[in-house]
């Protein structure tokens, strides 16, 4: 699956975040607009190993550390459109995502209920801020239009859409069932609706 996508394996990138900030911003932009795996591989190769060192210190356990890295980088891949280079550097944005995930992971480990969650304190990845600018996707789609495009959705997106919209499950239930992070469910839903919209546009 990784064919043709170089994960800078050989070169140790020793640059500091400031030195490659503009480059990483550009990569994130390409990820957001074109879902470009090559660009994401650049971001990933730079940040994932560094995140792992941070995560190991914070979680003190290899498995949890790698979970933190994966959740963080997964959000970077899926939410790249929420990165705003005018608001801060890529390293600050990625750090805040990792900090939020770590905060929630620790709460979960300590079995705290009805507690304060990271979104309450630092709404780094709140879709609302991005979404309020455009009309809800469903308002732009009409019933007959979508029908036969639905089958063209990727299997994973279709699964999530089916579970939520046919079985009426909550996003959290879907996440638990498929054993994927809640953020992944949300972004699959968003991507699916976006894709449907794009397909409609193409056929207009």
């Amino acid at each position, binding site marked *: *699956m990784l064919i043709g996508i170089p994960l800078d394996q050989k070169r140790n990138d020793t640059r*500091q975040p400031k030195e490659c900030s503009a480059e990483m911003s550009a990569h994130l932009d390409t990820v957001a607009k074109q879902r470009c795996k090559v660009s994401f591989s650049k971001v990933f190769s730079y940040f994932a190993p560094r995140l792992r*060192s941070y995560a190991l210190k914070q979680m003190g356990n290899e498995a949890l550390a790698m979970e933190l890295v*994966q959740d963080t980088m997964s959000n970077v891949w899926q939410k790249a459109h929420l990165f705003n280079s005018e608001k801060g550097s890529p*390293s600050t944005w990625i750090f805040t995502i990792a900090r939020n995930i770590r905060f929630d992971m620790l709460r979960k480990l300590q079995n705290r209920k009805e507690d304060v969650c990271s979104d309450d*304190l630092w709404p780094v990845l709140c879709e609302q801020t991005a979404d309020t600018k455009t009309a809800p996707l469903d308002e732009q789609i009409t019933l007959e239009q979508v029908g036969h495009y639905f089958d063209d959705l990727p299997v994973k997106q*279709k699964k999530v859409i*089916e579970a939520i919209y046919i079985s009426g499950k909550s996003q959290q239930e879907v996440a638990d069932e498929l054993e994927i992070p809640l953020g992944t469910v949300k972004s699959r839903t968003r991507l699916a609706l976006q894709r449907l919209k794009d397909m409609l546009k193409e056929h207009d």
Partner: protein
Amino acid sequence: MIKLHPTDSDLVDFVEGTLSPAKSLLVSAHCDMCNCCREKSEIFTEQLASKVFDEPEQSTSILSDFVNMFSEITEDEELASTNNNGILANPSNVLQQIIKNELRDSRNHPNLTKSDALYLDGRKFILPKTLIRFTDRLGEWSKLVGKLWQAQIDIGNGQLAQFIYMEKDGSIPEHTHKGNELTLVIDGEFSDGISQYDSGDYINLNSSHTHTPCTASEEGCLVFSVIDQPLYFTSGWAKLVNPLSNLYFKVNSGQSISISKS
């Protein structure tokens, strides 16, 4: 004019995510109201981020893990061109469901159901962003003695957050704290024999402080506060209510209220 702020070390702990959730809530709400602390937090966040990512990557031995991770993260995008599992019998039903659910979701949208203000005493109090997210967990307002009103938010973990509204000339009997009391002044002014406080002030008190908050302002005063132990009243008739102080400031069940012998 805000005079009282969290310490720099509190701000660093806050942006690092190591401050307790209750304290984080207060610091976050304070930053909503205070430009200077918000800017500081942003700077501290940047500094932490560069510290975390400054270290050059060291080992390459776990690289296969990263290769797997990379493909797991990105495989979402693979098109289902060959796999037709899960074809839907009737796509238009699906869409009906989608629209129905989206409508339901939009009714549940936080911006629509969560109020950005509290209405009290015929006045509207605009809340800091952070606290707006908790208004749907706000309990009933109850009237206490001394022109005081209180509404609680359960933030879990044995900690209790509450809004307290003091009407004009309202006061809380003199008391001290067994644990910490953090208070953020949302709107209004009050004094407590230690100092004078104004909107936005972040007040951190512990067992070494004994105070008698009261407000003389025409407008009354709304504060948000978090305590981890019940208050202990120290003077006059209010001493009588110490055994009952859970009526004033309830703590989670399971914790008993002990009476000091002083």
